[in-house]
Structures are given as C-alpha cells and as structure tokens.
C-alpha cells in the first residue's frame, strides 16, 4: 500500500489501530455488506440464484445475505420483467427499505422493458425508482451481475456519506 492510502497502517503503533477517514470506513463497511432484496420477477432471477450459488458465489462480495424483507435490505436487485400490475408493488417495497439504499436493474427488461414493448410492461424500472447500476443482458450471466455489484461497491466508496449526513443533521437543527 502507498503512503497515501486511506487504509495506511502505522506500524509504529502496536495493536489494532488503523487511521482512516470516517467516510471511507463507513463506505467500506457499507459496500462490503450489501444485503440484497431479491426482486426476482422473471428469468433473470434464475441467473440471480446462480450468482448466489457455489460456482459464482456472491458471498465473495459480502452480498450473500438475501433478505426477503425490505426492512433488512440495502440493495434491491430488480431481476426481471416489471409488469404494470407489479410496478407499484416494486415501488412500495423499495420505499419500505431503510436508507441508505441502492438499486440494481438487472437485465434488459428491468432496464428498459426489453423485448416487451407492449401494453402490459413498464418500460424500465427507472420510471418509478432511482437506479444506480444497469446490467445489460437477456438474461445477464452471473459474472455480469457480479460486475454490476462491484461497480455499485465502487460507487458507494465514492459517496460522501458522513458529510451528507452531517449536512442533513445541521439543516434539520
């Protein structure tokens, strides 16, 4: 590690002490324990399951804890075709998730409606909820989902989490 790294370990200090920025530490913890809300709506959910199983093993990125409750989830993986009948339910589940929360639109359908350009299908989940990462593919391979997850981790690492919270706190006083 270089001297400029936020993870720099000062060997002169014995014991378990690491100097870093608070933002970096918070983001490091957040990005490496992303508990997904598996919003499996169609065939993409099969690839999502594959990503969770032994060969691809999403646990390597700290995201193996599929929470089937939005209250305990950090990232919603919208995997599949969002029909209009399901759309407001997806939005409602997203709103039930506790902040901070992120969204991955997995596959063509969740990103843009995909091949379903029809009366029944919402043309992309970003019409209803903010999306952080779009993963292309129909369905995407598990590697593509893992790549999307790593990009989301990178994005989280760049977020001014503590500063934002501090600003909000000061504004609320």
């Amino acid at each position, binding site marked *: 590690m270089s001297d400029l790294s936020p993870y720099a370990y000062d060997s002169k200090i014995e014991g378990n002490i690491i100097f870093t920025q608070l933002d970096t530490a918070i983001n490091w913890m957040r990005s490496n324990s992303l508990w997904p809300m598996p919003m499996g709506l169609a065939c993409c959910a099969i690839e999502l399951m594959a990503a969770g199983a032994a060969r691809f093993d999403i646990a390597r990125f700290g995201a193996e804890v599929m929470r089937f409750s939005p209250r305990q989830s950090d990232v919603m993986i919208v995997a599949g075709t969002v029909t209009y009948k399901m*759309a407001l339910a997806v939005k409602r589940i997203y709103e039930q998730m506790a902040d901070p929360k992120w969204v991955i639109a997995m596959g*063509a359908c969740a990103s843009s*409606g*995909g091949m379903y*350009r*029809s*009366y*029944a299908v919402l043309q992309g989940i970003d019409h209803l909820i903010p999306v952080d990462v779009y993963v*292309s593919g129909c369905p995407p391979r598990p590697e593509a989902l893992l790549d999307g997850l790593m990009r989301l981790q990178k994005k989280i690492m760049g977020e001014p989490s503590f500063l934002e919270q501090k600003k909000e706190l000061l504004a609320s006083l």
Partner: protein
Amino acid sequence: MKLAEVAEAISSRFGERVTGRMEFRGELTLALQPDALRPVCEFCRDELGFDFLLDISSIDHFEHEPRYEIVYELYSLANGLHLRLKTTATEDHPEVPTVCDLWPTANWHEREAWDMMGLRFAGHPDLRRIIMWEGYPYHPLRKDFPLEGKFSDVPDVAFTEPAPLAGGPFVTAPVDGTTEVREPRARRAGDLPPAQAFIAEP
C-alpha cells in the same frame, strides 16, 4: 366410440343448429348457432362422455360480422376423443351462455376471455378480470387495441403508458446511417429524430 359417431349423434339430435362441420388431420370441429351451445355442451358431457374441458379461447374477426368466435376444446378421458366446438357472438352483443356449471374449470377460462376479449358470459357466478386489474378500461387482445397500449390509471393499483414500437429498443432505428447507427439498442422514444418510415432490415 369414434369421433365420426360423436359427430353423427350431435348432428342427428340438433340438426340445423349445427351450422358447420370440419375435419382436419383427425380433428373434428363443429360450428354451432349461439343458442345451441348450452344444449350441445350438456349433451356432450352427459351422454357422449366429454368429461374434460381443455380450453376456451376466442377470436376477433375485426370488421366482419359476427365479430367474435368462441372456441371450446372438449376431451373425453374415457374414450380419448378430442372435440372442438365453435360459436359466435356479435359486436353489439358479445355475450354467450356460461358453461361453468357443466365444467367448473370454465370459470377461469371465461374470466380470461372477458378480461382479454371483452366477451360476457351470461350466468357466470363471478365474472371479474383475471389478468389485468379491476378498473383497467380496455380489453387488450381485441384487434382494435394497439399493441403499444393506451394510457390508463387506477390510483394506488396500477397505471399504464403507451410504448410505441418505432424508435424503441430492439427495433431498427428509422434514420440514415450505417447499420451500427440503426441497429437495435437500448434507447428511449425521443432519443432519435422523428421517424419518417420504418426500415425493416432484410
């Protein structure tokens, strides 16, 4: 019992009310007057042993009268026979009698035909939509309903928006340029200049 005997039994009993008989690759289809549907179904079930209703489907002959055609697929498990019955409904009065009381499985088939095609089934115990939500104002499988859909909104339940095909993803873009420019890719309506014509790639 053979299919020919079935056809003979129905024809001799209902005579003129059976308006057509088609055979194709061993499949028998009988066309019926609308008022003959119930008695023929009862006869098929009780006396010819057609104890299983495979499916009810419907056809929209848009701009022709009678506009709607309703198709019943019957099957006899004991004899291994497949019989198809067809009847019609007009545009002004798209209604046929229910067969729910004969075959309980008809309940959901008829609800689907009501939802998608707007056919009413007189005597149905619970004729609600089955796929689209209550309050959706259209019957989307009718020929005069556009594929792109129409705007609708039922607050707190669901909404729909039209999604025109031209200029959308997975459609060749109607603009000048190389295949790379025109090829289907993720895009939104409005990303491209207005479509002059739809270019179909050979």
